[in-house]
């Protein structure tokens, strides 16, 4: 007890007890608001049918069961496109899109921060302004561009646009600018190293938090993206689409759709749990300097 005292005193300079209580109270109240719906989603997915249709409804499950998940997999195995095809599509699109984005964006970010070519400031400004509008605005024109390229109903329409994802590039560029010292690059250049070698061998290992963040963001984007308007063929549709079909199935499948919601939720949350510290580190340099 006596040992702890000085530590508490140091931590709480400029801090009042009342303020500490207030802050923790706010965190608990809003934390409950954020967390309880997620808990309810999990609780719903574990409820047997009679509990789902019980009056008055209970918040928490009483006799948890995995029946809903079994039902979900049964429903999905009944679809005429084999279920493994949806999983393959999601995996293929996510991996190809994410790695293409990672390589192209980090290479461009390296060139833009560490090679002094004229026009790079203007190029970056344009990326910055593009953070100010979302894809709703460009969806229709993108459809026209896709059909002009002949990419409608192909994997290309899902993979290639992911390469040009803006936020990932922005975060990578900011991170390189603040964390990679020019002096290291100068000495490598004096030794005669090529720019591509410097980028790949020296800079990329230094920006691990940023590329992990890029991977997570790109993966989340591709995982959460709903049905694409570019894809008609059932064989090219993704796992997400198959699950949404179950979700759209209505009341009779309410158990299965509760299970589907939980599966859609668990994957990105798990990815974030593993990478949280790296993402926060990347975000530390996200600020816009003017």
């Amino acid at each position: 007890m006596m040992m702890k005292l000085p530590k508490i005193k140091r931590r709480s300079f400029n801090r009042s007890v009342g303020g500490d209580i207030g802050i923790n109270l706010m965190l608990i109240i809003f934390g409950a608001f954020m967390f309880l719906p997620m808990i309810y989603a999990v609780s719903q997915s574990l409820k047997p049918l009679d509990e789902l249709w019980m009056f008055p409804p209970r918040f928490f499950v009483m006799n948890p069961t995995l029946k809903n998940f079994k039902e979900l997999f049964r429903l999905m195995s009944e679809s005429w496109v084999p279920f493994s095809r949806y999983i393959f599509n999601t995996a293929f699109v996510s991996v190809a899109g994410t790695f293409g984005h990672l390589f192209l964006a980090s290479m461009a970010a390296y060139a833009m921060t560490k090679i002094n070519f004229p026009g790079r400031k203007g190029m970056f400004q344009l990326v910055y302004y593009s953070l100010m509008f979302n894809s709703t605005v460009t969806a229709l024109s993108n459809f026209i561009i896709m059909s002009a390229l002949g990419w409608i109903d192909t994997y290309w329409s899902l993979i290639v646009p992911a390469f040009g994802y803006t936020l990932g590039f922005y975060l990578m560029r900011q991170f390189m600018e603040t964390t990679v010292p020019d002096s290291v690059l100068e000495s490598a250049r004096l030794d005669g190293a090529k720019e591509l070698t410097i980028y790949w061998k020296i800079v990329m290992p230094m920006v691990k938090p940023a590329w992990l963040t890029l991977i997570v963001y790109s993966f989340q984007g591709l995982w959460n993206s709903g049905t694409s308007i570019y894809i008609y063929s059932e064989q090219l549709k993704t796992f997400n689409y198959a699950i949404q079909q179950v979700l759209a199935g209505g009341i009779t499948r309410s158990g299965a759709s509760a299970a589907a919601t939980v599966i859609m939720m668990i994957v990105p949350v798990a990815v974030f749990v593993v990478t949280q510290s790296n993402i926060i580190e990347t975000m530390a340099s996200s600020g816009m300097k003017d």
Partner: protein
Amino acid sequence: MSEKAVTTQQAAPKLRKDMTKWEWTLREMKVNKVGYFMVAPYYIVFMLFTIVPVFVSLFLSLTQFNMLETPVFVGVDNYIRLLLDDDVFLLAVENTLIFATMTGPVSYLLSLMFAWFINELTPKIRAVVTLIFYAPSISGQVYLIWQTLFSSDQYGWVNGTLMKLGIINSPILWFQDTDYIMTLCIVVALWTSLGTSFLSFIAGFQVVDKSLYEAASVDGVKNRWQELWYVTLPVMKNQMMFGAIMAITQSFGFGTIVTALCGFPSVDYCAHTIMHHLEDYGNQRWEVGYASAIATILFAIMIGSNLLVNKLLSKVGK
């Protein structure tokens, strides 16, 4: 002339002050041309799918086009029709602005406030609380759980509980009742809104140099509010700019949530936003020219509000 330039360059590198601006730029371009090759692959894709579409849509907004026949140039007819003849559009603009002003600034302030609170916790608890606040924004369509909570029959948890307590006698049709739709959608949108800007603020608080606080305390900063205002926020200004852009852009993108919760179109168009109007004309009626005019106006509103807020924020602390 050129011969002379070459000889001097060989003798000693020409200094920047000896060259015209053009000569210098050209030289720099040649020396650093590898930079263009490295930027090009990303930049071409970015231009093609992000910048070019803006101009395509600007051009198409001046035409009549149905995706099959060649576009017919009609000048600003689409805009005139939108602003003067389309009552639903004006309703959509109003709803969009209500939605954006209710979600954008509130989500921004909530992100900042909770990032600040969370920063006071010990690292392990901080990681858990961060996850709890951030999770709804990345969990796909988990917001549909609100539809289950507020389900329109007596088996929905809210209706069931209110009925059990005797507050209401029959279930309320939450997502069909014009009195509740907007409020509920805003609440759900806020629930999913602690995303990138929130993480950026959390990181911002963590990198503030701790010695600044000690120095400030010597200078007479007495409580955590003063500490936040005089020490932390000025250091975090860049993060706050970035967070604002993320929050504003996001606040115009909640249409998907509205559609998922209330269906499309919503009852009496009471939650009809510009995005819904755009989808209606673009993907359902294939009036591409008209839809492009809607997209262009939405684009102008987004960029305009971002630049305005950017300008306001850059004045903070000056």
